[in-house]
């Protein structure tokens, strides 16, 4: 039995689009592609970071669950519900969410789960130079009686590069336009170091080496490396690893790795061999997942 990727869809937005709407659209497209109703989803994990108004509570996943109509009613005895929550692990969020889903799938608690990731400018006056494209993506994962699917997950930190990506919402004073105007605003600021590609590539190569070593594998056992583009980082990682690559999701943040998985699925890269999914995010944090073709 394995956790398989039933469908994955990506929605590119316009600059004015919000993250929640992009997540909603990606889920609708994903469920349509799989021919599955929203009520069949047991678990919804959202791993997007930047959303409308920098909302902190509730979990955005709950709002998304309501938007897509996944089991909203009162709990009748013998009924069926959906559980939803958010995680935050930067661009590695989708792989962390898949690891959580994989656990509940393997225990038998979940039959179908959605992993959704979307980021967009939190709104006018709420960010300074927001650097990511508005993109949403959703992946439907399910229990499969066949062997294969996602078989291993790993995560490693490289804190020596912790300052390469920093993002916070902080109070910035500003001149009052009118006497009744606020004296400042809470604003999102994202800082990315020019060294990110070099440090990210170096960290990814180390993390891949350790992950494959623990699994008793070598790079020669990997048929494809799947990774988000992430401002040149993806291409650099693929070049350094020297294996056939699938790189997609340019400009996207957390949705990037799902965009790469969508392209890999379209190209049939998940149907044969052993694929390695790699993401790098703030921390620096490198996540890997091994996907085996269903047998």
């Amino acid at each position, binding site marked *: 039995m394995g956790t398989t990727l039933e469908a994955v869809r990506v929605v590119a937005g316009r600059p004015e689009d919000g993250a929640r709407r992009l997540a909603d659209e990606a889920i609708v497209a994903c469920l349509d592609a799989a021919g599955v109703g929203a009520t069949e989803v*047991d*678990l*919804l994990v959202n791993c997007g970071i*930047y959303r409308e*108004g*920098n*909302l*902190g*509570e*509730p*979990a955005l*996943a*709950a709002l998304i*669950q*309501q938007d897509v109509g996944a*089991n*909203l009613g*009162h*709990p*009748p*005895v*013998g*009924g*069926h*519900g*959906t*559980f*939803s*929550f958010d*995680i*935050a*692990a*930067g661009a590695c969020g989708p792989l*962390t969410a898949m690891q*959580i889903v994989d*656990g*509940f799938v*393997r*225990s*038998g*608690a*979940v*039959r179908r789960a959605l992993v959704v990731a979307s980021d967009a400018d939190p709104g006018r006056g709420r960010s300074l130079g927001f650097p990511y494209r508005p993109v949403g993506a959703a992946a439907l994962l399910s229990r499969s009686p066949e062997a294969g699917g996602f078989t291993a997950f790993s*995560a490693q*930190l490289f*804190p020596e590069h*912790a300052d390469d990506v920093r*993002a*916070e*919402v*902080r*109070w910035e004073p500003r001149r009052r336009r009118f006497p009744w105007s*606020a004296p*400042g605003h*809470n604003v*999102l600021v*994202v800082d990315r170091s020019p060294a990110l590609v070099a440090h990210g590539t170096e960290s990814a190569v180390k993390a891949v080496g350790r992950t494959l070593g623990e699994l008793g594998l070598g790079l020669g056992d990997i048929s494809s490396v799947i990774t988000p583009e992430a401002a040149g980082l993806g291409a650099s990682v693929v070049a350094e690893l020297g294996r056939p690559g699938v790189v997609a999701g340019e400009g996207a943040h957390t949705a990037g790795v799902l965009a790469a998985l969508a392209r890999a699925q379209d190209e049939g890269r998940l149907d044969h061999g052993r694929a390695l999914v790699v993401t790098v*995010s*703030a921390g620096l*944090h490198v996540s890997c997942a091994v996907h085996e073709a269903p047998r």
Partner: protein
Amino acid sequence: MAETEARWLLMEAGGSDAMPFRARIESVGRRLPEDRVTTEAVMRSTRHRTRIDLERLTGIRERRWVGDGEDSATLAIDAARDCLRRSAHAAEDLDVLIVCSITKYRDGLAQQMEPPLSHHVRQAIGADRAQVFDLSNACAGLLTGMFVLNDWIRRGQVRCGMVVSGEDISSLARNAAKHVRHILSKELASLTLGDAGAAAIVDRAPEGSEGITAAGFTTLAAHSRLCLAQPSEREPGARMRTDSRGIHRAAIEDLPPLLREALDAAGLQLHDIDWVVPHQTSARAIRKGMAEVAQALGDEPRHPAVVTVDRFGNTASTTHVVALVEMLEDGRLRAGDRVALVALASGLEVGVLVVTVDEHLAGRDGHDA
């Protein structure tokens, strides 16, 4: 084992080939700021003359608020260290570290978005092996983190992990004090908030030991917009708008059948539960809610519902562990006691963890708050 068949809760209970192990709460810790703020002082600070007797409405006499140099990160780190002091594990034993706070303030009121706050806590406590991520599920966050850890430990994926929250949430109360005008104000609930840090280590229970016997969660998303919080447009920190009556109505209606589901999964009746530890919003709401649950189920737990909100206020995701620490310190909680940790949070998130206290947890010595 298809455990969600015909259930509303996403539930894990019992053992199976896929889940050969049992998880337990091995240790708990907390950090309460020194500054005590009475409800009278909070109401004196409101900009408008409200004529609201908040203490009578909620039963909250005082809460703790952070002082200089304290924030979400320091509260989380102090709670994690307190938890480790009471644990048989060292920081380097942790396979996973999950930060579950709503607030992620560092260096004042700067909400850290990336890297996740868990990276900072990992480094501060020296959990060098731990996989880390943040999890956000409003006031159900810490119990949701335990739910994830419970799954990973039961399947043998990891042996030991920590969930931790640092809630520097009093900025919402300070901001609400500028805006609350009357008893129907959507920001009235913000005046009940208090700051705290809390942490728990969950590990693989030794053979034959007690631990987490059932864990189930669901999101009643029809109510997802009853409580919304985000950074303020006018001042540092955040603001929260809550339809408290709507949440209470939904809880009264939906909690009894969900609690029944969780107890059924554990093979228990409500009278088998020694202590119900609900999320702490208001002493009055807790007592009224438990009376409604008892009436709906025709049964009641062995002791009245645990209340700490009178002294600490609503400390968001930390309330359950703050209460557990207190119960262990004052000797109320003993080996063999069955505890139902009941989450009720914005979303609307409902969760139940049924935990039997083992000798190890009950044998911990006292805490310094």
